[in-house]
C-alpha cells in the first residue's frame, strides 16, 4: 500500500514536469491559435542544452536552466519569424504544417549530428527517504522548479503590463491592435515564452531520464495528450492535467506494462478531443464555447 502511495507521489512529481511542457503548447495555442509542432524539437534542444553546458563547463545542471530559458526564448522568437508570422490569420492548418516542417528539419539535423544514441545528464542530489521508499532528489527538485516557473509565468501574465497585453491579444487580436498594442511583438514574445517553457521542461526531463534525439517526438505527443486533457489554451488546466497524467502513470505502472498505459493515454486523447473540447477540466463546469 505504501508502495503504491510512493508510486503515486512520484508520479505527481514527474507529472508536474509534463504539465510544464504542456503549458508551452497551450500557451502558444491560446495566444495565437497556432499548434506548435516544433515543440518536440525544442524539448530535445533543452535536453541537449543542459547536457552540453554541463559537459563543457561543469556547472551543476540546475544552473544551466537560466541560459536555457533565455536561449529557448530567443529560439521561440526566431521560430515565430521563420515559420509563424506569415501564417497568422490563415487557416490554422497552414501554421500546423509550417511548425511541423521546422520540427522535421531540426530533428533531422539532430539525428545527423548525434545519431540515436542515448544521452544522460548526471545529477547527484540527495533524495528524500520515507521508510523504505526514496523519492529521488531530482524528481523533487524538478517539481519544485516547475512550481517556481509556473508561478513566475502567472506573475508575468497577471502582474505586469506586458502580461496584460498578452492576455489581451489572446482574447481578441484585432481589438488589441485597435487599442494600440503592438500585436506582432506580443505574438513573438508569446512564442518565445512558449518555446522557453518547452526548452526548460526538456532540461528538467534530462535530469530525470536518459534521452535521445528521438525522445522529442515522444514527449511532444505526451505534451499534446496533457494539453488536450487540460483544455487547449488553458495553462492551469495543462498543469493540472499533467499532474493527473503523472498520477495515472504512477498508479498504472506497478500493474500493467508501459505500452498498455500508452494505449489508454492515446485512446483518452482521442476521446477527450471528440467529447470534451474544453478538456477534462470542463466536465461539470459550464464554460462558454469560445472557439
Amino acid at each position, binding site marked *: 500500500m505504501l508502495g503504491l502511495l510512493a508510486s503515486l507521489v512520484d508520479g505527481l512529481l514527474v507529472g508536474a514536469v509534463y504539465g510544464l511542457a504542456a503549458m508551452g503548447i497551450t500557451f502558444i495555442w491560446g495566444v495565437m491559435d497556432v499548434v506548435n509542432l516544433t515543440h518536440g524539437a525544442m524539448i530535445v534542444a533543452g535536453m541537449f542544452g543542459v547536457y552540453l553546458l554541463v559537459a563543457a563547463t561543469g556547472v551543476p545542471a540546475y544552473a544551466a536552466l537560466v541560459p536555457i530559458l533565455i536561449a529557448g526564448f530567443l529560439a521561440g522568437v526566431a521560430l515565430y519569424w521563420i515559420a509563424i508570422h506569415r*501564417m497568422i490569420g490563415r487557416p490554422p492548418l*497552414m501554421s*500546423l*504544417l*509550417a511548425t511541423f*516542417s521546422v520540427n522535421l*528539419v*531540426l530533428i*533531422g539535423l539532430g539525428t545527423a549530428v548525434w545519431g540515436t544514441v542515448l544521452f544522460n545528464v548526471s545529477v547527484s542530489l540527495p533524495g528524500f527517504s520515507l521508510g523504505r521508499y526514496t523519492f529521488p532528489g531530482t524528481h523533487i527538485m524538478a517539481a519544485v522548479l516547475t512550481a517556481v516557473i509556473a508561478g513566475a509565468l502567472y506573475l508575468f501574465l497577471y502582474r505586469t503590463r506586458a502580461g496584460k497585453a498578452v492576455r489581451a491579444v489572446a482574447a481578441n487580436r484585432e481589438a488589441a491592435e485597435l487599442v494600440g498594442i503592438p500585436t506582432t511583438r506580443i505574438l513573438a514574445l508569446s512564442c518565445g515564452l512558449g518555446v522557453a517553457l518547452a526548452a526548460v521542461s526538456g532540461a528538467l526531463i534530462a535530469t530525470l531520464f536518459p534521452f535521445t534525439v528521438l525522445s522529442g517526438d515522444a514527449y511532444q505527443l505526451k505534451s499534446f495528450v496533457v494539453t488536450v486533457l487540460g483544455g487547449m489554451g488553458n495553462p492551469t488546466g495543462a498543469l493540472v492535467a499533467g499532474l493527473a497524467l503523472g498520477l495515472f502513470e504512477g498508479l498504472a505502472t506497478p500493474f500493467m506494462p508501459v505500452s498498455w498505459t500508452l*494505449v489508454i493515454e492515446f485512446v483518452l486523447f482521442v476521446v477527450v478531443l471528440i467529447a470534451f473540447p474544453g478538456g477534462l477540466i470542463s466536465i461539470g463546469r459550464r464554460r462558454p464555447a469560445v472557439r
Partner: protein
Amino acid sequence: MLGRPFFWIIAVTIAVFAAAPLGGNVELRESLLLAAVYITLASNLNLMLGYAGYVNFGSIVFFGLGGYFCVYFMGSLGWGLAPALAVSGVAVSLAALVFGLGILRLRGVHFALATIGVNEAVQAFVTNFEPWGGSTGIYLSPELFQPLGGPAQALWIIYYLLVAIMGASLYLSYFVKRSKFGLGLLSIGQNEDAAAVLGVPTPRYKALAYSASAFLPAIAGGLYFFKGAFVQPADAFDLTLSTEAIVITMLGGQGTIVGPALGAYLYEELRGWLLTSETFANFQLVVAGVLLLLIVQFAPDGLMGFFYRRWPRLRRIFE
C-alpha cells in the same frame, strides 16, 4: 469520359510503369515500386486533404493495418494472396469508417491531432497484441511465395499488382473529382458550413471519403509487407511515411490529380539523390522539412498551382 485527354494521360502513366522495367531491370523496378507506393498513399490522402480540406497526419495507419491483416491472413490462417488483400482492404475501410464516425466531428487542427492519436493508439495496441506478434511482429515463411512461382517471380507479380493499385488510386481520384460526390467534397473543403447550408450531407460525405481513402492504401500495405515477408509495429505505423505523403501532396499541388504523382516522382528523385550523396545521407527529412516550409509559406498550391497560374490553358488538359 474516354474523350477527355486526362483519362489517357493516366493510362499512359500506368503503361510506363508497366513497361519500363521489362527486360529484367530489377533496380529500376524497385525504385518504381517505391514511387508507386508514394503515389498511392499521396493520391488517396488527397481525397481528404486536397478535396475536403482535412489533413490526415496519421494516414499511415491504413497502410500499416492493411499490412498486418494481410500478413496475418496469409501467415497464420493460410489464405491466398488475393483473398487476403481483398479482405484486408475491406476490413481497414470498415475500421476507418468506425474511427471516422468519431473523429470527423472535429475540424482542422483538432482533426489532424486526432488522426495522430488514432495512429499512435493503434500502434500501441498492436505492440501489445500477442496474436499479431506484439512488438516483434510477424514473420512470413518463404514458402508463401511458392504459389506465386517462387520468390523472384513473386516480386514481379507484386510489382504489377502495386502498379495496378497505383493506377486504381489515380482513377479513383479522377472519377471522384468529376462526380457529384467530388463536388460535394470540394465544397466542404472550401467552406464546410456553407456547404451544409446548401444541402451537402457533410457527415456522410466526410465518412465516405475517409473510408474510401483507406481502401487502396490498405491493399498497398498488404502487398508491401507481404513482399518484405515481415511486419512490425515500428515500421507499419511509422509517421514518417504519412508525413512524406503530405509533403508530396502539397509539393505537387493538393486538390489536383497530377499533383501527388508529380510530387511523388520529384520527391523520390530527390530522396534517391540524397541517399547516395555522402554528405546528405541523413538529411532526407531535413530536406522534406525545408520543402514543406517553403511550400506552405510561399506556394500552398504546390507545383501544379504554379503551372496553372502561369499557363491557365493547362487546366483544360490536366486535372
